[in-house]
């Protein structure tokens, strides 16, 4: 697979049009029948600081960064060194710079990669209204083998509202860039053209945050209360206009305490409800999450994780909210924790999570992260899913209704306002079956057992984990780390090594039965996670029996896992 992908980084000062060029390159690649992934990075300035776009294109679906970049294209040298750690290069990588730019930083001059200069500003100047980034787009498009018509289609789509002149200037820039590139290809012997297969599948371009929003909608969510926070805001911003289209609504709340309690209110009213946040906001929601567990009101909170602790590194990815998601509620408060294992899986997992919350009448936390949420991916249009919100409700006119009835499944049929005879008081106090507050040991044990039972006994089917391959070594992971692990395993497979991948989508409850089955034949494990304190490994240890021979590769953010480091680690295990 690796030979069929090309990784390109574009950097430049604020206003240089890095993100625009990157996004167009990705979209054009998709138009041309390729797949791809694009991640954004920027400096500390609120706006207008240096920016970087990291793009990986491929003939086959792709959702993780490669070990290093084939091409680093610096539209200028402005603070490019800030991105140094995010820009691994190889000796045969190429750094492309602008002839007109002065004083490349040492990070560039000392790089192991090859370096070439192109007439970027100069070419732009040749065109009336020309912009260097369009020359750059042309160069990169040509290098990756994207045909002009695909680039042109995207230009037309994006620049429509900017008028004919702008479109023409850009188009000319792209063409000029393509010419510059073909000279370059021969000059330095670059061949990055990707094979393009014909397909009739519809392609989608979306971020994990958009996918999560869509999954929620598919799952039946019709109410959201929102307080913005990086990197979760886009879920909320996507939901606001789209909920409206399907008869739902979004309220902007004054804070996270309000947003989570608002969705509890909405869901008490029978409307499947969601909010999205990141670590600091999740911390503010745990009291109410406990209320949802205790009062058995379904809600979903998507936590798009970022670097912690505290405000941490808000624009970068990390998996370190695992602990709080699993254990951040006071008291014995069994709830659902899920994690999507790819950008496109944000859709599936969000939908499934809504389904679980609704079915099990409890709080569910979906752990996404910045790298899933804010990266854009080209995928095949996903299939429709059967999971939709479906609460067990009592009938209108019910008599002697017991809201917290002790059932075998642990699920007590719910009433929602409008249902006659169902009038009850949802409560955070412990209650008897009839919803009246009770401090008796008997009621407490019975309700604790029930709330645990309903989530333990539920049939999660095969969805609790992605299990791939066979081997006596299992790599156990979750979330965004799944993609680099998968690629690492595939590379090793090519070398003849057999390794099993277990990526947990359902983090809580633990399912010892299915886990043991998955671990059959495994005698060695490697746990890979993006935290500092081995949170995932510690959690696995606490609920599952791991092989004696278990190793951990834990690395905090802000840098992403790359397949190569996982390959190295596995090789080291021998």
């Amino acid at each position, binding site marked *: 697979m690796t030979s069929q992908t090309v990784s390109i980084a574009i950097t430049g000062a604020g206003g240089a049009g890095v993100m625009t060029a990157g996004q167009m390159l990705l*979209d054009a690649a*998709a*138009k041309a029948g390729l797949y791809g992934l694009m991640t954004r990075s920027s400096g500390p300035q609120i706006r207008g600081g240096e920016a970087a776009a990291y793009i990986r294109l491929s003939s086959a679906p792709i959702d993780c960064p490669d070990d290093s970049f084939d091409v680093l294209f610096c539209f200028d040298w402005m603070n490019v060194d800030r991105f140094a750690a995010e820009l691994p290069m190889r000796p045969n990588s190429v750094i492309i710079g602008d002839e007109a730019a002065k004083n490349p930083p040492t990070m560039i001059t000392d790089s192991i990669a090859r370096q070439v200069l192109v007439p970027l500003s100069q070419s732009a100047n040749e065109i009336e209204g020309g912009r260097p980034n369009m020359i750059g787009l042309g160069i990169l498009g040509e290098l990756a083998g994207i045909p002009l018509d695909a680039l042109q289609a995207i230009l037309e789509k994006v620049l429509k509202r900017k008028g004919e002149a702008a479109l023409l200037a850009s188009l000319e820039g792209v063409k000029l860039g393509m010419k510059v590139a073909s000279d370059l290809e021969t000059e330095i012997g670059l061949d990055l053209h990707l094979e393009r297969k014909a397909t009739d599948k*519809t*392609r*989608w*371009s*979306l971020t994990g945050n*958009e996918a999560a929003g*869509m999954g929620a*909608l*598919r799952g039946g969510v019709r*109410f959201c209360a929102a307080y913005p926070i990086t990197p979760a805001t886009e879920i909320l911003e996507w939901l606001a206009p*789209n909920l*409206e*289209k*399907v*008869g*739902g*609504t979004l*309220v902007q*709340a*004054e*804070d996270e*305490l*309000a*947003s989570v*309690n*608002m*969705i*509890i*209110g*909405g*869901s*008490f*009213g*029978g*409307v499947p*409800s969601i909010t999205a946040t990141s670590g600091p906001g999740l911390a503010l929601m745990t*009291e*109410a999450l406990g*209320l949802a567990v205790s*009062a058995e009101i379904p809600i979903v909170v998507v936590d798009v994780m970022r670097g912690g602790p505290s405000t941490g590194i808000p624009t970068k990815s990390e998996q370190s909210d695992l602990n709080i998601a699993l254990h951040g509620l006071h008291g014995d408060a069994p709830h659902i924790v899920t994690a999507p294992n790819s950008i496109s899986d944000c859709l599936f997992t969000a939908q499934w999570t809504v389904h679980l919350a609704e079915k099990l009448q409890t709080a569910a936390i979906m752990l996404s992260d910045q790298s899933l949420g804010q990266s854009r991916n*080209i995928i095949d*249009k996903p299939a429709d899913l059967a999971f939709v919100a479906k609460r067990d409700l009592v009938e209108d006119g019910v008599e002697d209704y017991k809201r917290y009835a002790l059932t075998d499944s642990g699920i007590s049929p719910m*009433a929602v*306002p*409008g*249902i*006659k*005879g*169902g*009038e*009850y*008081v*949802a*409560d*955070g106090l412990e209650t008897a079956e009839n919803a*009246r*507050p009770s401090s008796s040991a008997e009621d407490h044990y019975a309700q604790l057992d029930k709330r645990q039972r309903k989530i333990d006994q539920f049939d999660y089917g095969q969805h609790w984990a992605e299990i791939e391959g066979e081997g006596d070594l299992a790599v156990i992971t979750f979330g965004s780390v799944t993609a680099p692990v998968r690629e690492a395993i595939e590379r090793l497979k090519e070398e003849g090594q057999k390794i099993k991948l277990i990526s947990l989508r359902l983090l809580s409850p633990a399912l010892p039965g299915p886990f043991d089955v998955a671990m059959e034949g495994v005698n060695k494990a490697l746990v890979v996670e993006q935290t500092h304190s081995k949170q995932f490994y510690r959690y696995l240890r606490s609920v599952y029996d791991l092989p004696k021979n278990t190793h951990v590769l834990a690395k905090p953010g802000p840098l992403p896992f790359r397949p190569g480091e996982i390959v190295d680690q596995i090789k080291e295990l021998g």
Partner: protein
Amino acid sequence: MEQPVQQKPLTFKDYKSDYKPVWCPGCGDFSVLAAITKALAELQIPRENSAVISGIGCSSRIPAYTSVYGFHGIHGRALASATGLKVARPDLTVVATGGDGDGFSIGGNHFMHACRRNVDMTYVVMDNEVYGMTKGQASPTTPSDWEGSKLTPHGTGVSPFNPLSVALSAGASFIARGFAGDPNGAAKLIAQAMQHKGFSFVQILSPCVTFRPEQAEWKKIVRKGEITETGDLGTAAAFLATDDGFSTGVLYETQRPIYQPSMEENHSLSEIEASFEL
């Protein structure tokens, strides 16, 4: 509010549950329970279409003593849950309730923002100027020289909170004060509040016989508020800012656009999904 189709009109007793309140004998909250149930009866709201939402405190126990839907949530968040419920289910009659600690201390932010947001619901605060449930600490409305709590043995030393004045500044469109000693008057105010289109706030002075026995004096002090122009912001602002907190009645009322997003389904999911296509 549509009249329900039923034989006999519901009386206030029909809105009470058979569950015995945990309140101390003589607590003002008994009267507030009477007032709320009377207001519900006056408006003949179908039980299944109304909900009483509260936080935590003696006063916040009230939902369980009614026979409508209820939510006894967590401390300070009644208004947030009530907002969510009403916005998601605009067909319901929603009454948020609670105490001065719940509403103005831990819940103060939601109070302000609920006033601004103007969702069509009613908020009834049983103000006893104390935290009853936790055994008698000063609340925001407690006079600064009250030395009855071990937590503030020399008094709070802090200006007491003026909820009506804050409600006005924050944009509330209906502001009233009642007294538990006059449950019928209070019932009338609450019914008026429920009929008001938008967010209505009713403070009920509700004595705590256990931790503030001196509040027995209140019945001598409360009076009808001497405000004539209840629709003028400036007048109301000056009146409420300088009032001693014992003027009862509707003290401000205006009409402002209510917050109720239209919720009309006009797209299919696949239409939305199409936006992801390249």
